């Protein structure tokens, strides 16, 4: 297209473009953001796929994530090792899912992962309590927290096992009109 960038090969950019919801310019911009998180660690030349991972502590300091109460869980859900260390692939993947072009189903899958604190593929009452406390910064009384968690499970649980499986969660999310606009980070 005429831009003489040497960070990625054309083939790599095509692959990124097909695998995410970003255009070439946005991918290059993302690389610049990734690079400025740790200029000494991140190489400018990605043509030979360097194996470089940034730790959780650096990623959650980004201005887009800094104030989000779920920032740790977000980064952990997208990291392959589950500890929050993101390579550039995972970094791009994270912002692609959180962009406004991602479809509802894809966002629902990752939202479920984020709220599942104990990673057992169910949203049990403990997960909900942690979510609620993060949401309200622990300003609700324990009885209120209990009440809200009970009501939430009561509303969304379809198969009656007192915890929310992925299909329960997805069924509830498809009826939430705000989900697409709130589960969205602009970068």
């Amino acid at each position, binding site marked *: 297209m005429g831009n003489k960038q040497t960070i990625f090969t054309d083939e790599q950019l095509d692959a990124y473009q097909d695998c995410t919801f970003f255009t070439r310019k946005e991918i290059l911009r993302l690389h610049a953001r990734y690079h400025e998180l740790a200029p000494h660690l991140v190489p400018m030349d990605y043509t030979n796929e360097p194996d470089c991972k940034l730790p959780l502590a650096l990623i959650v300091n980004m201005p887009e994530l800094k104030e989000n109460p779920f920032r740790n869980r977000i980064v952990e859900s997208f990291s392959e090792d589950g500890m929050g260390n993101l390579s550039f692939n995972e970094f791009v993947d994270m912002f692609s899912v959180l962009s406004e072009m991602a479809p509802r189903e894809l966002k629902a899958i990752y939202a479920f992962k984020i709220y599942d604190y104990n990673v057992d593929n169910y949203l049990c009452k403990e997960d909900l309590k942690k979510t609620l406390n993060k949401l*309200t910064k622990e*300003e609700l009384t324990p009885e209120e927290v209990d009440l809200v968690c009970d009501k*939430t499970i009561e509303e969304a649980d379809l198969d009656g096992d007192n915890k929310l499986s992925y299909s329960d969660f997805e069924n509830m999310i498809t009826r*939430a009109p*705000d989900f697409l*606009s709130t589960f969205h*980070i602009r970068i």
Partner: protein
Amino acid sequence: MANILLSEASGTACPGELPSLRLRRTWSNQNYSQFNWTSHSPDNAEEERTEEGDTDWDLREKPLTMALKRAAWQVQHSQAPVVSNKDSWKRKKTKTFRKVKNNSRELLYVLSLWRKSLQKIGGNFGGGVQSYFVFLRFLVVLNFVSFLLIAAFVLIPSIVFRSVESSYTNSTGPEGCRKYEPHPPGLVLFYNYFLDLLSGTGFMEYSYLFYGYYSNTMVEDRDFSYNIPLAYLFTALFYFGFCLLCIILRMGRAVRVAIATGGGDVGNYSMIVFTGWDYSCLGDQATKLKQKNIHYRLQVDLEEQRIKRKAAALTLCEKITLYSLRVLMGILSLGLICSAFICIGLATNFSQENSDKEGILGLILEYLPSIVITTGNFLVPLLCDQIAKVEKYSPSNTVILALLRAVVLRLLSLVVLLYTLWNQITCGGDNKSEECNLCQYNHKDYPCWETRVGQEMYKLTLFDVLIHFALLILVEFPRRIVVDHSSSKLARWLGRQEFVVPANVLLLVYGQTVVWTGALFCPLLPLINTIKFICLFYFKKITLFYNCQPAHKTFRSTNSAFFFLLVLFIGWCWATAVMVYSLAVIHPSFSCGPFRFFRTMWSIIPTSFYSLHQSSQEFLFFVGSQAFLIPVFVLAVVGLCYFISLSAVYGNSVALMRLQLKREGRDKQFLVKQIEELSKKLHIPTHNTTVQN
């Protein structure tokens, strides 16, 4: 065994769903090396069953890690295409289509107006306030495009053909009706220019701003003819049609979201917990406020539950008193609104009767209707809020009721104003009365009544923007200064101002309705409105960031878009009614304007119709005849029935599928328990067979 179950369960879904369900299962097993490549190659028989053009496996929507996706992409692209010419052509087509879409998306992104400001507002104040500014932007663009339309077809030809003599010289009106002196004789003082600017009289009255300046020129060249009155009429009609189209398109988008999500308040708590947090929230202050906001919403819900329980526990006697109190308060609020209307009518009458006063007093008298409307729209909702405290409805019902009252008040004030004007102009519709006998309208007070109506609308628009500016300078900034720097009880009780979205939206809708009503009589009003709304955007943005704190009570942004457009649509309907009445019933002025020689404004269409070519006339007659219209009507009814039954079928299948989901969940539980019992009986050590999905 669980796998067999799942594949059977997913077999009932449509074919396109199969791959994604399988993928989710493999993903949830957290064991990526088990990913089955062969079942997802594009030549798979199942893929061929999917819809046309979907043979390209869309990698972006798969929940795999990036490394896997890129590996899959490599596989896709390194495979020698053993596909037919048709398939490869289709794939190329979808690829180029996607490239074009991406490029146009980038272009729109760069060109979109005020994008950064809207982002900042949304991040700091939430979706509800952002939706107000998005609505404002929509109105700015709508008004600007309308102005371009009017300029192209009415203004520029009028300027170009100004020197051409008017072709209709046969005057059919009585002599007395044709007197019109927009320029009063004698010396004009300098400060009169300023007064004239504000009230649309004097040098502004006889200008392109108002209807009265346009003449009924009909240019006929060798092969070019332009009929300005016809152009004026058609532009007005097309302008209304265009605005209706824009409103309906935007409403369609909002309604589709509402229908797709079931449109209900089902799952209130789960909605708040899982979708309450706005991930695009920026800044430390904003997140703290967001947390307080969610806390407040949950408390409101818990409070509503308590109120419901209390209401259910009322005794009969208490219920009767409550309901009679509500009826009484309803009558009281209705009385307040009607008294506001009476005041507006009186003010308009008074202002019209004393319209010949000079100087500052004259200016105030001219603006009297606007002043009374604004004061009424400020006081009456305040009083109704106090009344609502006595009525003791639940919080959500209170909000809805307050909104309804405000909408009725705003839109009907305009109705009252126009009715009073109509009364004066047409002597109450009585053509035989003394003043209206000669020209069928009150020619003494209104030699050019269209210009006068246009002037009233112009004054309303101007007053609106002046009042906003005055409020900004004189009320909002001082309030913030007082609240921030003094610690008195009053300051603490007053608190910083909150940006109340519904009231502001009603102001916008009111302004736009005024413009629509006046566009026929004041063609440049859309341009003035564009400038007004642009100024309003910056005023409101400044006040938002410097003077306001985010509201504790939220306004749901998705439902609200539809509500704004609905109120706008009601305003549009009213403006259309006014336009149709002016076109078809009232006699145009004899002394000014492009329609001065016609019986009604509409009668130019039959006149020009007969000057068309004979075959065009016959074609148009055919289109308007019963032989054509009745079959078209029958077809439209059939189409409507089809779509209604289709949507009913879809609704039914959605409900059935939901029921099926529930049943499958219970079946899974039952079967898992069976497996566990069986394995215990046979003493087979099983790994964790709990069903993952």
